[in-house]
């Protein structure tokens, strides 16, 4: 895809994001908003994974974004779209801090550190009830909350922007450096790349994007407490989506997010009478999906396309 076509696709996607919510019934509109937040965290998680940084702390970014939005809305009645800015700065700053503190830790050690930092944020949020409302939670000032359509549009636009950023990043020369960092940070250093700086860059970007998801969720639900804002489930779905869709790819996290959201909804509706069975089926499908599609839906599609291409060539008698 050349860059003019890419821009056209992005423009079209923005248009859809702006118009579509006005035609969606409330149920689907809620789903679209939740899907957008899932895409945000999934793409953001995938960005870090692409550079070899496995994060277990994405709920930390989410919670930071959510509390920033809620507190600013309540304190100075900041409009919803503007809260994105301080939330992204804080999320990005937390990303930089994470990169700085973890230093050269890799793999499991990095993952555990991120988990610890996200948990620390949750505990802090519980411990300062004057600011966060503690375990009782916090309501976002209702009168400045936007309507459902606006909120869904806003969420979809952010999702489109995020995918666009990840697409352009994948086309840039930084992609090589990031991919190479996944193999060996000392080897890229020998090529004149400063791995510490790239690490900070990618955690800052990833953190800023993930905190946007928290902002959307805070405005959309209008209520948050430390348990929900720093929920481990956020981190887990942020990594299942890219794993299911296709790790390290641009479309993987998006397709994965759509797939697991659809799956979870379908199992919930179908096995509605007992929530446990639905979750069990959902879990089993995910496990088998990851087991039998190691390169995700995107990889499966690539293989299928190659095979049908070969078969077509055979049928026409070409070698």
């Amino acid at each position, binding site marked *: 895809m050349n860059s003019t076509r890419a821009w056209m696709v992005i423009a079209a996607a923005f248009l859809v994001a702006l118009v579509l919510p006005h035609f969606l019934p409330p149920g689907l509109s809620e789903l679209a908003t939740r899907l957008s937040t899932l895409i945000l965290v999934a793409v953001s998680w995938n960005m870090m994974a692409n550079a070899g940084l496995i994060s277990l702390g994405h709920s930390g970014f989410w919670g930071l974004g959510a509390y920033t939005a809620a507190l600013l809305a309540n304190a100075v009645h900041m409009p919803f779209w503007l809260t994105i800015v301080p939330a992204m700065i804080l999320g990005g700053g937390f990303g930089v801090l994470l990169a700085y503190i973890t230093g050269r830790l890799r793999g499991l050690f990095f993952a555990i550190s991120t988990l610890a930092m996200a948990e620390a944020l949750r505990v802090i949020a519980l411990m300062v009830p004057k600011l966060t409302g503690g375990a009782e939670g916090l309501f976002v000032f209702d009168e400045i909350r936007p309507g459902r359509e606006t909120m869904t549009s806003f969420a979809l636009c952010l999702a489109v922007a995020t995918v666009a950023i990840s697409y352009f990043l994948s086309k840039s*020369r930084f992609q*090589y*450096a990031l*991919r*190479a960092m996944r*193999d*060996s940070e*000392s*080897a*890229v*250093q*020998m*090529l*004149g*790349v*400063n*791995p510490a700086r790239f690490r900070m860059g990618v955690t800052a970007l990833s953190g800023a994007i993930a905190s946007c998801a928290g902002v959307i969720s805070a405005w959309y639900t209008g209520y948050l407490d430390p348990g929900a804002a720093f929920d481990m489930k956020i981190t887990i779905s942020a990594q299942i989506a890219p794993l299911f869709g296709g790790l390290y790819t641009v479309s993987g996290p998006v397709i994965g997010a759509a797939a697991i959201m659809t799956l979870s909804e379908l199992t919930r509706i179908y096995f509605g009478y007992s929530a446990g069975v639905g979750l069990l089926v959902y879990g089993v499908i995910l496990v088998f999906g990851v087991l039998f599609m190691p390169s995700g839906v995107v990889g499966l599609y690539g293989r299928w396309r190659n095979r049908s291409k070969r078969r077509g060539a055979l049928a026409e008698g070409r070698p």
Partner: protein
Amino acid sequence: MNTPMSAATSTPMLEIDGIRAGYKDAVAIDGVSLRVAQGEVVCLLGANGAGKTTTMRAVTGLIPLMKGTIRYQGEDISNMPAHDRVTAGICLSPEGRQIFPDLTVMENLVLGSFNPRARALRKEGLERVFTLFPRLLERTTQAAGSMSGGEQQMLAIARALMGQPKLLALDEPSLGLSPKMVTAVFESIRAIASSGITILLVEQNTRAALTIAQRGYVLSTGQVVHQGTAEDLAQSEMVQKAFIGSAHLHGGRRSRRDRRLAAAANGAPHAAG
């Protein structure tokens, strides 16, 4: 015979003065001093664990110095981070190649020219490495990890060359290669040297190293124990001892052949037996 070549004519490319380096509490090299003049090919010889690779890592900045100084083109770079040394012109082809197996050959090469000075010269750099290693040109879109060991070594050297080095550091380029491949790789290194690039070469394959180097240093247990011109070293009893000693480890046949070769180099057919 053991005095280093005079480099008083100009500032040396690299001047290492009494460096100590290692890993945590283990000091691997202590008091190593050496100099490499502009356009020279200098080899570091020594057995396993002598400190060759540690010296190389200290020169390229991958491990910090505990003591001593490293000067590059007259400038003290002892505390310069590794990635800045690449931009300054010190490029390393690391031990064990360390290419990126999942990236294509072309992507590996492009990464080699990541530093801003080399990026501007990427086209010329690609031309140069493809002239030097035509085999890589046939494999630009292939995953680097799927190539043979020799081709991967060529890629590692080519990638270092893409960084537009003034000082090319080669760590064990013959490691794990067939004798035929060793010859091919050393032929390429000779071509690189004749194009005017200064080379610091670490090798266990003493014989091959001494055919292309002008001078050499022998390391043992973290110290320079011997130095001189390539001819001096090839004839020195000490080097021969290390040479034959290490060859013993590879079994009798190789050892006999090496002894014969070493004796022939010495000009006395039965002296080394």
